[in-house]
């Protein structure tokens, strides 16, 4: 167990509590682009319970990273939040003065990015960087901060932590750098860790190590985590709940086992099928036809309609083209935005070979 008192003192119980730690309500973010103002996030709602690992999944351009940056209020200066709330323990972060938000970042909300080596300062020793939040956020002396950094580096599985604390970023491998970033992220004793594609740049062997580390850090310290990824396979190994984004909207939200084992939204199913890379009888891979809507494209009806394999075969194409489906509760804690599901036209058959394969894989 860690020696960091701030971290150890946080007696948060694991498991989603009655009040979520984070509640995102009707968040809408717009960005200027050459084609005019583009709506990157178009009214999304989801929550993260205490001790819960929530994965935010979707293709590039779906709004995953923008959502994460909105929560931490690190959006690029040109982006504008046009509506919505981000509640941390009931307090709207979007209303806080910058000074208060500065205190929340690092102390209550920490972030982990895709390129660990680019996130580290090349000119300062990693031990100093890990201790930064302790010195400036918690007023520790330089030597206290250094001692705690070394302990944290040990915690995240860095061999010879005392010696490695004196290293610079360029002397670390990608996996080691991500461990260092993890240590820095948890040093301030945050309640929420936002990890944006934390393993995408790493080797598969190291990916598994880092995912295991993140999960154990979250559980040991009673943190909540928002994990952002385009890879359903990765999130299935550690997330409690999965929120699927498509073109700036939530299309499915439910427990991981249900999302992976029985994807309900046609997009989630297509994403799952295409990520398995298992060829059909003709040796072809399943690929979702077409591409996601281009930013700025006018969207009417269901946003996935043009790529959906069910809309035509089920004879509801006209409805899908004109009316946007709402989020429909299909089971307790499982929502889905699809007319075919809402009208009971898609029935989940556990005997579907694709679904069986998925179950097999995540077993």
């Amino acid at each position, binding site marked *: 167990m860690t020696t960091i008192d701030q971290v150890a003192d946080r007696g948060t119980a694991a498991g989603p509590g009655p009040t979520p730690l984070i509640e995102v309500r009707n968040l809408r973010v717009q960005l200027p682009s050459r084609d005019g103002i583009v709506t990157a996030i178009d009214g999304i709602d989801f929550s993260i319970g205490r001790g819960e690992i929530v994965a935010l999944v979707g*293709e590039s351009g779906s709004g995953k990273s923008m959502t994460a940056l909105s929560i931490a209020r690190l959006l690029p200066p040109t982006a504008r939040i046009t509506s919505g709330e981000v509640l941390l323990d009931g307090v709207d972060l979007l209303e806080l003065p910058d000074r208060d938000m500065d205190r929340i970042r690092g102390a209550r909300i920490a972030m982990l990015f895709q390129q660990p080596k680019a996130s580290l300062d090349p000119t300062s020793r990693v031990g100093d960087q890990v201790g930064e939040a302790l010195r400036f956020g918690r007023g520790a002396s330089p030597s206290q901060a250094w001692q705690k950094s070394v302990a944290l580096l040990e915690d995240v599985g860095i061999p010879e932590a005392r010696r490695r604390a004196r290293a610079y970023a360029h002397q670390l491998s990608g996996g080691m750098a991500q461990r260092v970033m993890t240590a820095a992220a948890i040093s301030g004793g945050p309640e929420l860790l936002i990890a944006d594609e934390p393993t995408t740049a790493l080797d598969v062997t190291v990916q598994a190590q880092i995912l295991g580390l993140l999960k154990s850090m979250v559980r040991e310290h009673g943190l909540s985590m928002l994990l952002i990824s385009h890879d359903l396979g990765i999130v299935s190994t550690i997330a409690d709940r999965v929120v699927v984004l498509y073109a700036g909207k939530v299309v499915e939200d439910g427990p991981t086992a249900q999302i992976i084992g029985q994807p309900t939204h046609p997009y989630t199913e297509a994403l799952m099928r295409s*990520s398995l890379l298992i060829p059909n009888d003709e040796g072809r891979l399943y690929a979702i036809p077409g591409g996601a809507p281009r930013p700025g494209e006018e969207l009417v009806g269901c946003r996935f309609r043009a790529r959906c394999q069910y809309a035509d075969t089920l004879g509801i194409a006209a409805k899908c083209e004109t009316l946007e489906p709402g989020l429909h509760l299909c089971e307790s804690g499982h929502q889905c935005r699809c007319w075919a599901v809402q009208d009971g036209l898609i029935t989940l058959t556990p005997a579907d070979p694709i679904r069986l394969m998925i179950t097999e894989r995540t077993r």
Partner: protein
Amino acid sequence: MTAADPAAVGPGADPGVTDTGRHPKAAAGRPLIVLEDVTKHFPVSGGGLLGRKEVVHAIDGVTLTVREGEVMGLVGETGSGKSTLARLILKLITADGGQITFDGQDVLAADRGQLKALRREMQLIFQDPFSALDPSMKLGQSIEAPLSQHNIGDKASRKRMVAELLDKVGLPASFAERYPSECSGGQLHRVVIARALSLGPRFLACDEPTSSLDASIRAQILNLLVDLRDQLGLTLLLISHDLRVVRYISDRVAVMYLGRIVELGSRDDIFEHPLHPYTQKLIAASLPERAGEDHAILQGEPPSPINPPSGCRFRERCPLAIEACKELPPFEPARPGHSVACIRWQDAAASW
């Protein structure tokens, strides 16, 4: 094997190849690229301004044959030398030792003129399409550039060729007038492939061709690569750390670890009966359903290629390592068409 497949009944068809993979015509080809005992070391300056010179053992004695028409998958962790190997074949960097031939022609000894001709036959596709294309050039100009550099056709015929190339990769001719910033990553990838095909190469090295892409687009690009190879009879070297990609597309697979090939076999040999403990760990990490429960996650990371361990380079991370592994293990056939550099491959095979 379907009746629609002409190669299956042609004189080149080898009756023994059907069990090597999905592409029956592949393994029938003759050797196109032959590497023999190829070595590449990069000097780096060690600690401090006056530090002594150290050497990165990027490639250490690699022997490999790529046959005409096959897809050779090359897998390994960062720093294993996969990308260096592709660059050596195309002579973008020059090997220190050993021999590399393309269709019998010595690549290392090629002079400028010969090299220019060779590069029409061999092309490389990089991982990041955004940095592979000039943002200030229209896509048509980018695709046309190799044609004009090699003085192929006049302006009008080159324009036609660009349209044909775009069609080959599944893009409308109007894309020639677009700029990179107006396209998605998947579309740019197709453009990069079109440009690589412009000179009609026989060999295409793809360095992590799909790792910057979303899952849905990745499948589209892989399908395209398979189509092109079937239509054009291309030979592919596919470098990836994603074993799912390699399993789908490869006829044969070479596994690299710290500058050496540690296992080589047909796709099914490698994925169904991996013999090297390292290959087993790689498969367990990326295809967990393939491995038994007792295949724990590989710990640690590859040691530095600056001072690689003596003997078997994997021994420090290997669960089966014994004293004798301090000697360099021979790279030998364990089964027909399936070679491994591990003295304990029989025990490893038994554990799978």
